[in-house]
């Protein structure tokens, strides 16, 4: 199988040549910037809110083990089950076991990126279980047999006529390009799926540790139905999603909605605390929470990059990233796309195979500026590069920078290099026309500037001489 880098380059070539799709993504995000900025004004001070959020996440992660223990005790005290999964396979096995033990044949799911991370649907389907995604975007992606394009807007790249065709082919719907009608078609189809499901799987946007709750943010109400209709509600969530207190949601819920979707607050925010009991007849018969590590604790141990675990997956960094907007989410080949994905994937899945993501950024910093919980994303991408270069330096770059340092350590040589460069400029131009060379990367689509007649140092020296003669 080809390497992640080879696949990435091929996907990038494909995506960047699709100008219509790139324009579509730019246009789709245009409205988001306006509503995001408008809703930031609902905060008395957005910058202070960011600081406060970062501080709260810092506090949560510093006490992660304790917070998770309190959380699990609370859930278990109410008759729920909590399972700590170190690896994706442990998480999958637990979920498969719950399904098996309860004779589960059909599952309804709401949006859960953690399940993408562990390839849960494949495992459930292999075990003969029907799994249906109920979030409209995820439902569309499931029919397209494609992973999410964006971890908040899974099908943002799909045009409505494509959805029309997709629905006609897969769920035999009528021919319509009307978004409201298309939504109704999906809704009608999904209603029966909720009723038939033996188990509902959701993710969680927050683990409210000390109150023993999970909090789910959504706009479609599909998560509430997925949690409420089936007899079993299973939550799959990464361990880092902790906030200590219920009142912390007063900040995080509007912040997530504003940064992520440009909304003051999402349509539904629901907290779940356990199964039904004799005193409390609401809720599912069984309530399971699977807490996934999958190398998050390794990232926690990295003092420099631990703040990457602050992420609440709002997607704000993707929405402003010029790389994401031009290459699209599918090119990354990762569960989490965009700047935050490029930052955490080398930590979670290994620097060796995923370092190219840290390099596929101009480090423009738009992500860091957008991040509501103040993750230093672009600086961390640079530090990822440092880690990669330290771990396995490239001989080519070592040589380039050796030459670079040698020339730049000798100003006279540097001045001479300028003169030589000017002389051999036609050669350089020629070299720039050879595909495959490093220089061609730039000159392939751009023209090298003509060298100036004289260098700055020559002109400055001349200027000083004249200056002296005047005096």
């Amino acid at each position, binding site marked *: 199988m080809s390497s992640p880098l080879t696949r990435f*380059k091929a996907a*990038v*070539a494909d995506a*960047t040549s699709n100008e219509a799709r*790139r324009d579509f993504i*730019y246009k789709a995000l245009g409205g988001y910037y306006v509503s995001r900025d408008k809703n930031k004004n609902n905060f008395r001070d957005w910058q202070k809110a960011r600081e406060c959020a970062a501080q709260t996440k810092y506090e949560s992660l510093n006490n992660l083990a304790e917070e998770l223990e309190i959380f699990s005790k609370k859930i278990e005290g109410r008759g729920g089950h909590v399972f700590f999964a170190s690896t994706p396979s442990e998480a999958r096995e637990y979920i498969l076991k719950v399904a098996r033990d309860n004779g589960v044949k059909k599952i309804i799911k709401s949006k859960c990126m953690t399940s993408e991370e562990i390839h849960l649907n494949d495992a459930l389907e292999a075990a003969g279980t029907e799994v249906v995604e109920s979030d409209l975007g995820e439902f569309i992606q499931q029919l397209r047999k494609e992973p999410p394009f964006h971890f908040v807007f899974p099908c943002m790249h799909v045009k409505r006529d494509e959805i029309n065709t997709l629905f006609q082919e897969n769920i035999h719907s009528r021919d319509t390009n009307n978004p409201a009608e298309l939504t109704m078609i999906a809704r009608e189809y999904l209603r029966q799926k909720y009723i038939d499901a033996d188990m509902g799987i959701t993710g969680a946007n927050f683990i409210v540790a000390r109150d023993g709750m999970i909090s789910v943010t959504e706009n479609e109400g599909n998560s509430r139905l997925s949690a409420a209709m089936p007899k079993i509600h299973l939550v799959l969530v990464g361990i880092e999603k902790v906030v200590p207190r219920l009142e912390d949601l007063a900040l995080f819920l509007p912040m997530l909605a504003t940064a992520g979707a440009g909304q003051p607050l999402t349509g539904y925010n629901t907290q779940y605390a356990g199964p039904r009991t004799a005193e409390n007849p609401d809720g599912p018969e069984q309530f399971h929470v699977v807490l996934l590590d999958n190398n998050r604790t390794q990232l926690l141990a990295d003092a420099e990059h631990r703040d990457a675990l602050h992420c609440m997956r709002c997607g704000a960094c993707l929405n402003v990233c*010029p*790389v994401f*907007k*031009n*290459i699209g989410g599918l090119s990354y080949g990762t569960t989490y796309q965009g700047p935050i994905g490029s930052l955490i994937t080398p930590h979670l899945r290994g620097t060796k195979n995923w370092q190219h993501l840290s*390099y*596929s*950024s*101009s*480090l*423009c*910093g*738009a992500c*860091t*500026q957008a991040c509501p919980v103040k993750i230093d994303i672009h*600086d961390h991408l*640079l*530090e*990822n*590069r*440092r*880690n*990669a*270069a*330290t771990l396995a*330096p490239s001989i080519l*770059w*070592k040589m380039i*920078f*050796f030459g*670079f*340092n040698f*020339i*730049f*350590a000798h*100003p006279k040589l*540097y001045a001479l290099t300028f003169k030589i460069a000017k002389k051999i400029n036609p050669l350089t131009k020629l070299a720039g026309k050879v595909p495959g060379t*490093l*220089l*061609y*990367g*730039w*000159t*392939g*689509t*751009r*023209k*090298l*500037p003509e060298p100036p007649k004289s260098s*700055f*140092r020559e*002109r*400055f020296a001349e*200027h000083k001489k004249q200056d002296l003669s005047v005096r």
Partner: protein
Amino acid sequence: MACVKILERLGHKVVFPERQTCCGQPPHNTGYWKEARKSALRALDIFEDAEVIVGPSGSCIAMMKDGYGDLFKGTEHETRAKALAAKTFEFTQFLVNKLGVTDLGAAFPHKVTFHDGCHGLRMLKAKHESRALLAKVKGLELVEMSEAESCCGFGGTFSVKFPKISTAMVEKKVASILETGAEYVTSLDASCLMNIGGYAAREGLPFKTIHIAEILASQEA
């Protein structure tokens, strides 16, 4: 030379230590910090005695003010790096924030749009300075582009490592410049301008690139 002219007109003595070469950003940016430290250390030595360091580049200045902090964190040179950072200024920020000058008596009768280079904008927080200076240039009409704050796609070695992404980014940038109908695009950084200009020249597009210092040094003909 535009920078030198302006600073001298304002009565400052400009010194150019001939030993200076590169700030070390290319290796730093590529992850080769050991190599970057060599260049950075030279700069620490060379500029040790300077009163104020001014550079007409958001990118190099951000490296000296911010990048050196990363490179020398926890080393014996940390204090020196901090001292250097404190006396180093991007050209427009030096004029506006340190000297309090906005009107340089410049004239440039053209329609101009401004590209906010990433380092200047997001690391140095330079935005209003360039506008304040350009507002005082006689005859200059500034037309802001919708993608003013978007990266031009250069990113140093990024542009040769991932040329397809880099080119896609400069395409978007240039489309936004063209929308304004400006004759010139200007910026704090020669590197962004080289990237934008290189693409524009290749495509034969109807605008030119010019560094902001050159506009500010322009006088009435």
